[in-house]
């Protein structure tokens, strides 16, 4: 027994133990592989595990002198399966990419490889990152380690559940409308969407290009800063990436003196559960105790943000997903008589229901006669949403809200009602529309399930956001170890456990 506790160990601490020779990459990696062996049969966080490769690579790191090791050498990491990685099957949670082996590597992933991280595996997601529960994966349903009867959130639910379950030290997700922050919230961990352009999107399988950002899912705010520091930066392969005018700092602050926090009343409207509201308000009081000042304010176009998002994101998705046509890669339907039939059947058979819905909404919104009323109008609303934030940041340094209006919901409870599912992201979507950085940190439990606290900053104010988050995190003192309870136990809604999904893709055709 190593004495390492994967449910509480942070990356900052793991790095220190490695550097000081108190643990090895091999021991550290084995700690997570053991935890995977113990819990993956319940959690189903990974689409594909790379256990042997991870152990082999860790052993190689241990043989190298400390001086030649990268800054993140030996840290076991989970990667969302929508970041292409050369030679490693990358599915985006879709049947259409079930057997796709990329010939290049996403910049954010390559930057971590360059620092010698250990990739434990590829995590589950809603197909093409479209969803808020990870139930839209073509391969499996991931469970929340705090209650196996509930969802982990989504779309980065696989990475979030893996980190929460101690099956990974930390990991990468992507966030288009809340897909990092909402699962972080539901799984009781830290998740950050950086400013649009801060992290290269090269090699991120595109969902909505003007909204997508890669970011960290971690056990602590300091870990979040450390991971962000290593994935951020300009990349000439992504024309929207920007040169950051600063380096991401690992925060140490424990006070909030002089900081002004805006509390948008629109984000606390109907739909916010009483338990979520209670934890949120307690956290506001903690902020005041730390020297910050909280004041209610308005982001007046919030009620239109969700509608604008559900035009813009599907419109971009319908264009981005046009590339999946059975010609250059991925699935192709067999036996088509001609090219058109091949396209239509490949896409009809390859995409799942939610992806089809979004392609249809997007195609409709961009079609002749509807473009101005939908897409044009949505882009105007997007400007108004951004201007709301701009005006608010004249008076406030940071804006805070619950990350999700609810705690983790039961598996299956929203799958029949797309609009109810879309409401999961009401507090996170406006941030993507405005391109701002935002972090979610755990701020307590409601009915035994984690509640997330969202901190939003001005564009490129990552260091301030992280500093404030670190101070709040210290005051909250949340214990990140989940319970692995199953509130449906005895009800029989969960299938037999004990399977370790070495490769969940195999289950699909079974």
């Amino acid at each position: 027994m190593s004495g390492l506790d994967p449910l509480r160990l942070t990356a900052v601490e793991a790095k220190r133990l490695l550097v000081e020779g108190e643990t090895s990459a091999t021991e550290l990696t084995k700690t997570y592989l053991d935890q995977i062996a113990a819990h993956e049969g319940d959690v189903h966080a990974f689409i594909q595990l790379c256990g042997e490769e991870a152990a082999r690579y860790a052993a190689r790191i241990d043989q190298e002198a400390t001086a030649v090791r990268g800054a993140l050498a030996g840290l076991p990491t989970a990667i969302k399966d929508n970041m292409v990685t050369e030679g490693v099957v990358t599915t985006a949670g879709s049947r259409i990419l079930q057997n796709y082996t990329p010939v290049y590597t996403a910049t954010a992933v390559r930057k971590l490889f360059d620092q010698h991280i250990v990739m434990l595996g590829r995590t589950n997601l809603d197909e093409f990152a479209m969803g808020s529960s990870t139930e839209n994966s073509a391969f499996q349903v991931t469970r929340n380690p705090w209650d196996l009867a509930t969802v982990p959130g989504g779309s980065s639910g696989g990475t979030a559940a893996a980190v929460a379950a101690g099956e990974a030290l930390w990991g990468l997700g992507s966030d288009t409308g809340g897909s990092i922050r909402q699962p972080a919230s539901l799984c009781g961990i830290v998740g950050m969407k950086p400013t649009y352009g801060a992290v290269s999107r090269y090699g991120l399988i595109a969902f909505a290009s003007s909204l997508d950002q890669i970011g960290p899912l971690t056990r602590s705010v300091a870990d979040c800063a450390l991971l962000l520091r290593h994935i951020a930066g300009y990349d000439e392969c992504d024309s929207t990436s920007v040169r950051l005018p600063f380096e991401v700092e690992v925060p140490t602050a424990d006070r909030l003196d002089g900081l002004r926090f805006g509390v948008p009343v629109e984000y606390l409207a109907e739909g916010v559960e009483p338990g979520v509201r209670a934890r949120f308000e307690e956290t506001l009081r903690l902020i005041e105790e730390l020297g910050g000042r909280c004041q209610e304010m308005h982001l007046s176009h919030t009620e239109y943000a969700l509608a604008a998002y559900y035009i813009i994101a599907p419109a971009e998705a319908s264009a981005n997903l046009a590339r999946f046509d059975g010609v250059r890669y991925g699935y192709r339907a067999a036996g088509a008589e001609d090219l058109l039939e091949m396209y239509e059947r490949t896409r009809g058979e390859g995409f799942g229901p939610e992806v089809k819905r979004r392609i249809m909404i997007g195609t409709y919104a961009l079609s002749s006669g509807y473009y101005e009323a939908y897409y044009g109008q949505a882009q105007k609303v997007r400007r108004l949403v951004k201007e709301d934030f701009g005006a608010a940041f004249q008076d406030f340094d940071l804006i805070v809200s619950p990350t999700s209006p609810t705690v983790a919901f039961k598996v299956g409870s929203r799958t029949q009602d797309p609009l109810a599912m879309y409401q999961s992201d009401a507090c996170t979507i406006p941030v993507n529309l405005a391109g701002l950085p935002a972090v979610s940190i755990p701020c307590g439990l409601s009915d035994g399930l984690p509640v997330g606290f969202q901190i939003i900053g001005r564009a490129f104010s990552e260091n301030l956001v992280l500093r404030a988050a670190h101070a709040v995190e210290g005051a909250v003192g949340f214990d990140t170890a989940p319970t692995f309870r199953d509130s449906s136990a005895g009800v029989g809604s969960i299938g037999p456990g004990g399977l370790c999904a070495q490769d969940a893709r195999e289950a699909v055709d079974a």
Partner: protein
Amino acid sequence: MITEADVRYVARLARLRLEPDELTRMTVELAKILGHIDKIGELDIADVQPMAHVLDVVNVSRADVARASLSRDDALRSAPAVTDGAFRVPRMSQR
């Protein structure tokens, strides 16, 4: 209100085959979602400029220098069907 014929037309534009039961379900679901989305029509914002990009950025170009890119073999590696160093697809139209 979106009709089943509209849905069939949009599915053709999207190159997406929908089975008959999917078509029926999709029509109901899209009507509900569009009902929500139509909310943005309430706003009188004719004079607002549509937003093209969230940040104040300018176009960037890389240096115009030739360099290696994906090899033909790599580009074809993942293709479902290949012939003579090219992607192979079914014929364009029926006889």
